[in-house]
């Protein structure tokens, strides 16, 4: 149970990091990408009865385009971008997306069947839902793709270069604005993946973005902002902590306990578990 949610927080945190690395801002619409991915998947599979893989690709593509449009229409035209201005814009966009999702998909939570219809699997005495395996597998795939992209493709290296030193990157001929756009599109895509794989378990509704986003943000901060390896570990950690507190203390306090632990860690290590404290800086856009 914990690992499922934890994987989602990890994916959301990776999305936060991507945009943070390219712009220095926190994208408050990240949770909405997750919701849109999930809702779109429900429509495509349950209402239009498309096959799972095809619906998966289409949903990710749809949300990627939403991320792309968000950057082009709301971030790129800003004349004098400051961190505060951009953050406020992302909050506005999140409210807008939430409203749109409510208009399109309604207020109720939508059911979606699991990816595969086999029953629970016995695994060393524990029973595991097949969906859990899907979630873990897809998290692993996304993380691998992420590592390959940023270390072995020239576009990925350009994006990293841009986040390391913007001026130097521009002097190499890298279009920094294009990299910002790419980071929005990619992190929207990753958010969509998170939403799609969790929907069969939690049932998606339009209003879930805020809490998912918040916990993902917690994971990002806990892992050290901008550090995606840390984000994955921290995301899983928060998920497991949550599940344990739900089991041992009370499921009423489940949401709170993870956040309290996160606050506590930040008091002790402001840079996150894996971050260096010197690295807590707000980048200029």
């Amino acid at each position, binding site marked *: 149970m914990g690992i499922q949610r934890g994987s989602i927080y990890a994916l959301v945190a990776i999305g936060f990091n991507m945009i943070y690395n390219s712009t220095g801002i926190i994208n408050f619409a990240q949770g909405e990408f997750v919701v849109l991915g999930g809702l779109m998947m429900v429509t495509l599979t349950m209402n239009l009865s498309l096959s799972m893989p095809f619906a998966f690709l289409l949903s990710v593509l749809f949300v990627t385009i939403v991320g792309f449009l968000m950057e082009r229409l709301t971030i790129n035209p800003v004349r004098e971008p400051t961190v505060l201005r951009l953050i406020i814009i992302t909050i506005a966009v999140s409210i807008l997306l939430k409203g749109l999702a409510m208009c399109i998909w309604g207020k109720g939570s939508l059911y979606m069947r699991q990816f595969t219809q086999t029953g629970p699997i016995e695994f060393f005495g524990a029973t595991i839902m097949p969906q859990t395996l899907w979630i873990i597998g897809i998290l692993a795939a996304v993380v691998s793709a992420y590592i390959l992209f940023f270390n072995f493709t*020239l576009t990925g*290296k350009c994006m990293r270069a841009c986040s*390391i030193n913007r001026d*130097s990157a*521009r*002097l190499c*001929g890298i*279009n920094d604005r294009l990299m910002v756009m790419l980071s929005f599109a990619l992190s929207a895509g990753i958010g969509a993946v998170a939403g799609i794989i969790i929907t069969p378990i939690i049932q998606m509704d339009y209003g879930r973005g805020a809490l998912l986003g918040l916990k993902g943000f917690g994971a990002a901060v806990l892992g050290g902002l901008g550090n995606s390896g840390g984000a994955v570990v921290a995301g899983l950690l928060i998920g497991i902590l949550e599940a344990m507190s739900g089991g041992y203390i009370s499921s009423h306090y489940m949401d709170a306990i993870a956040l309290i632990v996160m606050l506590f860690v930040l008091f002790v290590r402001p840079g996150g578990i894996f971050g260096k404290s010197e690295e807590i800086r707000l980048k200029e856009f």
Partner: protein
Amino acid sequence: MLRLVNVNSNYGLVHVLKNVSLHVGKGEVVTIIGANGAGKTTTLRAISGLQPVAEGQIYLDGKDITGIAAQKLVAMGVAHVPEGRQIFAPMSVHDNLELGGLQVYRRFGRKQLKCEIESMFERFEVLRDRQNQYAGTLSGGEQQMLALAMALMSRPRLLLLDEPSMGLAPLIVKEIFRIIEELQSENGLTVLLIEQNANAALKISDRGYVLETGRIVLEADAEKLLSNPEVKRAYLGREQREIWE
């Protein structure tokens, strides 16, 4: 080749460049000397498109390039090695060179990029041995070599160098100046150089400018500047003592 006409630039309300005019002919090496905070770095940043120009024009080969973004100017043959070895420290030396050669990749593809990196390794042998190391782990001199190599990877016609000898041992400074001279004589590269080490810089230059609080106050051939008493007093401290002795 490069011409600045009454260029003005400011950081917020601070007026840093005041009617800076200068020119650099094809194949020339030109040095700008000036005290700390005179605006040398700002001048180079304005030329390479990193710093907005408030007033005035910059021409490259007669074409007005004022306000063209830095990432586009690279494709037009302007390479800028910024102050303080701005390499991508958490990336490998090889990756740094690859990024420097982005222009080559865009125009001629991956194969040509490989060739280009190989030829860079021939010029800078140290970098070949370190190619898989993180750039941040290189010594200061090696980092400066890397920064220079990255700029050269874009096959520039005009090279802007901002204090390449800053904080380096005399031997490496010598090596860097040797490479600049070599590039200029072999490839006909045009170089605009900024140096605190005015003596060494003027020795390899054709002409020089003196920048004082954002204004060009003097322009002359390099030899004339080297023997100019005013310049000697302000920027070539050591020579002054020799005269007194």
